């Protein structure tokens, strides 16, 4: 097979969100991270959709957690970023970093 498919901007953000949440990365916290850190008011549905797509690409994997007392007794679907996901993410972030290196236009105004 050729090289693994790339990821879009929102996909990057969602993967980063999953990483930020650590062991408790399910729908709600990931969605909250997006808003808190990236300032993105995404819809919950869009987050699921993206996670589903990433899972299909093999960049995240999910497992069903045990039922909890809160949440109406419903179980969580917990995500983690896979090794190939990390690789792709690293690569695309690095390429962004390299591309923006030394660009005065991108520096924060003093």
């Amino acid at each position, binding site marked *: 097979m050729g090289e693994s498919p790339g990821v879009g901007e929102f996909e990057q953000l969602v993967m980063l969100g999953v990483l930020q949440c650590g062991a408790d990365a*399910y*729908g*709600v916290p990931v*969605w909250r991270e997006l808003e808190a850190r990236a300032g993105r008011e995404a*819809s*919950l*549905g*869009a987050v*699921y*959709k993206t996670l*589903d797509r990433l899972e299909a690409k093999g960049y995240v994997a999910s497992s*069903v957690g045990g039922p*909890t007392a*809160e*949440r*109406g007794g*419903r*179980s*969580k*679907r917990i995500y983690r970023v896979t090794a190939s996901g990390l690789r792709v993410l690293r690569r695309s972030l690095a390429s962004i970093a390299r591309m923006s290196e030394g660009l005065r236009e991108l520096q924060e105004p003093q």
Partner: protein
Amino acid sequence: MTPPLLPQRLVRHLIDARFAEAALGDLSEIFDDEVRSAPRRARFRYWRRAAGVCWHLHRRRPRPAPHSSGDSLMLTMLRDFVRGARLFVSQPAFSWAAVVTLALAIGANTLIFNIANILVLKPLPFDRPDRLGWILGTIPGASPDRAGTSLPEYAAFRDEVSTFTQLAAWRRQPVTMRERDQSDRVLAQMVIGNLQGLWGLKAARGRLLSAADEQPGSPRVAVLAHQFWTARFGADERVIGRSFVIDGVPHTIVGVVAPDIELGNISEIDVWLPYSGDPALASRAYRGWRPVGRLREHATIADAHVQVAAIVERLRREHPDTNRDWTARVGTTRQALGGANTWLVLSLLSIVVGLLLLLACANVMNLLIARLIGRRQELAVRTALGATRGRVVRQIIGESLMLGMAGGLLGLLVAWVGLAGVHAVSTEPFFRQLQMDFGVVLFAVALAFVTPLAVSVIPTLRVLRDDVRATLSEGSTRTVGSATAARGRSALVVLQVSLAVTLLIVAALVVQSMQAIVVADLGYDPSPLVSAQIDVARWKTEDDQAALRLRQRVLARVRDIPGVEAAALATVLPALQFADNVPFDIGGRSTGDERDRPTAGLTVVSADYFSVIGVPLLAGRGFEAADASSPRAVVVVSAEAARRFWPSSSEALGSTVRIADPSGAPIEAAVIGVARNVANPMITEPPVPTLYLLDEHRPTRTTNVILRAAAPASLARPLRQAIGEVDPDLPAYQLRTVTAAMEDENSSNLLLSGMFAAFATIAILLAMAGLYGVMSYAVSQRSGEIAVRLALGAPTRVIARQVIGQSVKLSIVGIAIGAVCAYGLARSIASLLFGVTPADVVTYGVAIALTLVASLVATWLPMRRAATIDPLESLRRT
């Protein structure tokens, strides 16, 4: 507090099972968080979020086997619907084209349904209206069924028609209603017999009128209409028992009618009065009464009609002077409420909007087919992966339903805007009662469902016919232009062109007729005139001479109003009101056979009438002051009367006529002049032969004060004031410029011609859009072929000529069919046409040319696009 149940169910059923559990958990977690701060908002957000989750994650995979599905049909449909909505958003140009097309057609149909609803479908506010028989009189020269009945005729019907268990009659009359020093001009419904009981009205307060109230010597009573009671007295209970002076006679209010009659002009009644016994209303010549009877059990309208017709025939023999021309029939309630033309116009409007809907369906169907062909690959793949055909068909229908509902919603808006336009144009009570009620909305919703189902039939059939493997192996849309598909497209082009031509021609004929009526020559210029009606009632004075002096005082006073150039009196407004028809004899010519006796409209005027109105004398002279003071009556006849009853105008001059005056002794008068005709109030009819007499020679009671002025509109208030100064008990009513009165008369014509013009415009736009769609699709199918030919060196001109020629051929077939249909339709509505024949060459020519140009443009645009594409590019794409 728990999250709302319905969105939970939706999420569970609509989205992929892998996600449902976790998504529901997440939703409820967020909900729990938010509900503490703002419970209502949390619920709303739950809904929104759940919808978003369904939108993004709805199940797309076909189910492995049909039987494993536990889903109800409802849920499957809901899923199709969501998919339809997604498709809608993803192809905005297609969706808007389809939705706007549907909306225009649904809107137009809803508007017309609204009219039909009131005329045909709405339950009538009478008790068992199908058992009512309405005696409708007709006299020549006036609208059929619109003439009334005289009291002696009514009495004959009441006593002799055994098929009626009850007969009652009514007449309308403006009356002056006074309490202390406050007086109002109100509309009274004067009844004879138990009309309120016969109609099935109920009393809201007090009691209704009964037949006993009209007995001589019984106390004078009146009953208020509910709307008047609320509007004038603020629904004050204490008004019952109070006494009002109505036309000079004290009446006690004994009740209020329950508010269940909101039908046409019945809703205009202010007060109900029993017949007062006034002998003037009981003469054979006074035909102001409208009888209605309740049929005996098992008797039919036809039975009643047979008896009524026999009595009409007998009265004609017994009273030839008054009954020679009068006929009557028994009509149904609907017939009594709507004129003959109303039905014709309504059916025509229904046909027109029906064709419009057909046109819209053809367009949308074409769009659907084109899109479906574009998606053949997708559909074939789905079928190959195990989606049943039924499932695919349901999906197509779901998508169409989505379009239909959007179209229906927008269509309601279109109808609503149209209705606002109708209300803005027409002052007629009939049009004012049009409204968006439940039935009308239901109709629009039904159309929104039925139309998409209808338009998805053919595309669905195509899907069912499609061979999956063939489509897959084709791998492209190159060979779609099969012979059947091309035939289908041609048929669609012909259908659209013919519908557009039909609509265009019929609408143009109707619009021309209505415009012709509006601008028809009246025989005089109404623009500098303002008029008011006054009525020197008998309760004021029995003396005709006193009444005459009062009118002359009014005339003298209004002449002094600043700005008034001249003033006159006339019993009818020319070309607006019908004059009483009177029989007369000419000179020595004996009456002989009653059937040969001439009749003419009698208009009683003041001496300078002709100069004030601006009607020229064609022969002889007009009235002079000396005529008024002379006891010898003189008469001016209209040109139509002179033409009809005398060998020539000069022979008319100098001859004498003997006019049988129903309200007094015959009047002998010398003919002194011939005046130019004024138009018949029913403008489509020839002018009425008219005799003009001076006010001094023929006693009258009700007359019009007509002023000529440079700025007539500004005179309404001073005119009312001046009349009030002469006599405070003489209220002026129907005070308006004559132009405004004309516009009132014409408002329905203007309205209808506006509707037809709008429908015709929509039709031609829809047809153009449809043609453009069909042709651009056809051209795009052939773009490969065109590219090859261009590459091989064929000149663009030749290719263009061929493609356009093909479309022109189809258009001509469509135009021919459409013109024939239009002619058939126009023939059936010939009685509506005025100033234009059903086969008017210019109309047909213009409509045909317009359609041809439209179809050329619709072909040329896609053609040009295909021809300008680089052949290589075009070939690569196909």
